[in-house]
């Protein structure tokens, strides 16, 4: 897996708390170049957004998923925008429906707004923001 990099991280970038108990395994996966979401070991169903626990306090397991999906919806953001991401405008914010079912928020790389369409097959890439924070982003599937 080739990582992408953000060479000039803005000092006000809204970085996630990668040590938060709810999402720590997700961010660990990203650092390892692997998209991980929750799954119920009993039913085999994937869960998203993550849950701190389920009924009776049972914990879901974190498993790697395909990293493939399709564009469920998207928005092309313009000014005024967050200073930390302004250099990416026009930014295609995307809602990806994974092959496994859940929908994840992200943004597109390697394509322009004109390339976008509903149902477009996409695959995950990983963009390194800091030594702790790596962000899954999406590009059109080859």
């Amino acid at each position: 897996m080739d990582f992408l990099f953000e060479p000039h991280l803005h000092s006000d970038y809204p970085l996630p708390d990668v040590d938060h108990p709810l999402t720590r395994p997700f961010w660990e996966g990203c650092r390892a170049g692997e998209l991980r979401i929750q799954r119920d070991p009993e039913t085999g169903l994937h869960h998203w957004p993550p849950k701190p626990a389920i009924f009776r306090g049972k914990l879901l397991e974190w498993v790697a998923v395909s990293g493939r999906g399709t564009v469920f919806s998207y928005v092309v953001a313009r000014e005024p925008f967050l200073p930390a991401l302004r250099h990416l405008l026009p930014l295609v914010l995307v809602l990806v429906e994974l092959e496994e079912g859940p929908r994840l928020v992200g943004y597109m790389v390697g394509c322009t707004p004109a390339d976008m369409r509903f149902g477009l097959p996409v695959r995950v890439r990983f963009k390194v923001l800091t030594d702790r924070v790596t962000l899954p982003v999406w590009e059109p599937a080859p």
Partner: protein
Amino acid sequence: MALRPSPIDEDLFSRIRDRVAIVGIGQIGFSKDIGRPISATAIEAISLALEDAGLSGRDVDGMSMFEMERTHEVTIARGLGVENLRWWDKVSYGGGASCATVMHAAAAIATGLASVVVCHRARNRGAKDARPWAQEKDVVTDDKALHTPWGLIRPVDVIGMWAHRHMHLYGTRREHFGNVAVAARKHAQRNPQAMMRDRPLDMETYLAGRVIGEPLTLYDCCLETDGALACVVTSVERARDLRHQVVYVHSVAQASGPNPVHLANYNNAPDLLTTSTWCADQLWERSELAPKDMHCAQIYDAFTPLVITGLEDYGFCARGEGGPFTEGGRIELGGELPVLTSGGGLSEAYVHGFNLVLEGVRQVRGTSTAQVEGCRNVLVTGASGVATSALVLRGD
């Protein structure tokens, strides 16, 4: 088989339905930067609502407000001269709380926990540091960490995902969103309090609006307004002795929908449905009235597409037909279902939907500046998308 919630207990709910009333409303002038603390504006707005009802602070024993409020209940109670606050409550999820403040008040009155409850929203957004990211913490936690780090932080983009999907699935067009913006603006021209009075908007101007987050433009977005508004809720028995025609709380509901998150609720259904879908089910199940009985609707309008989906969610038309429903002046005064008769969040003021509650009361009283002739029944809704709430108000 999954257990389903018990059906509503009719006997218990009948303690609320038409047994509780909104008896007073009050607001101070809207502005872009009000220049006074929300503790002071809240007390003033609540006082105006009490005066409108013919009551005073000494009559108040309950208080219900948005969780977003930063003023302590006791501070307001002290200012109003409340002798003893016996019940209070703060409701979460931003604009999802607007109708719920009244719902909780009604429940408190119906169960005897309080006798006169004041509900309010006092908002100071001002011009300073108003962008959503200016209020963000350095490190994002919880649900927000699932969308903010990618730059999905402006509410217009969060709602844009729903709007764009709706356009894709049903052929909804920008002109349909424009019909909402134009109707709200038209109604605002009749409202001396509206921020957008004397600034009319036509479809041509709407369509030429600056793109903010494609497919949504400037005129799809609500205003940013400072203001303070309040209402007074009490029993119908007491309401009959007060100044105004009785405005009955007929039905109330709150709903989160399944698998909810704080804001970007994109995993609650096989397709993108807003939380209002579930709220509407509850609201009409508890109501003796149906969508066809509504004489107007104050549908939460932080962004124009929410009115289109709201018309569908609350049963005024079938799924996917919200866009065409707005055609031919149907949602304007004189049409079949006028919406946002004060101008709403789009053109009167954006105060997390509390102005919609007050407009619902005015329509039942017959005192709106865009009065629907013979109006008795009004739907008022809270923010779609977040965990939300709704009300049916009615008159005699």
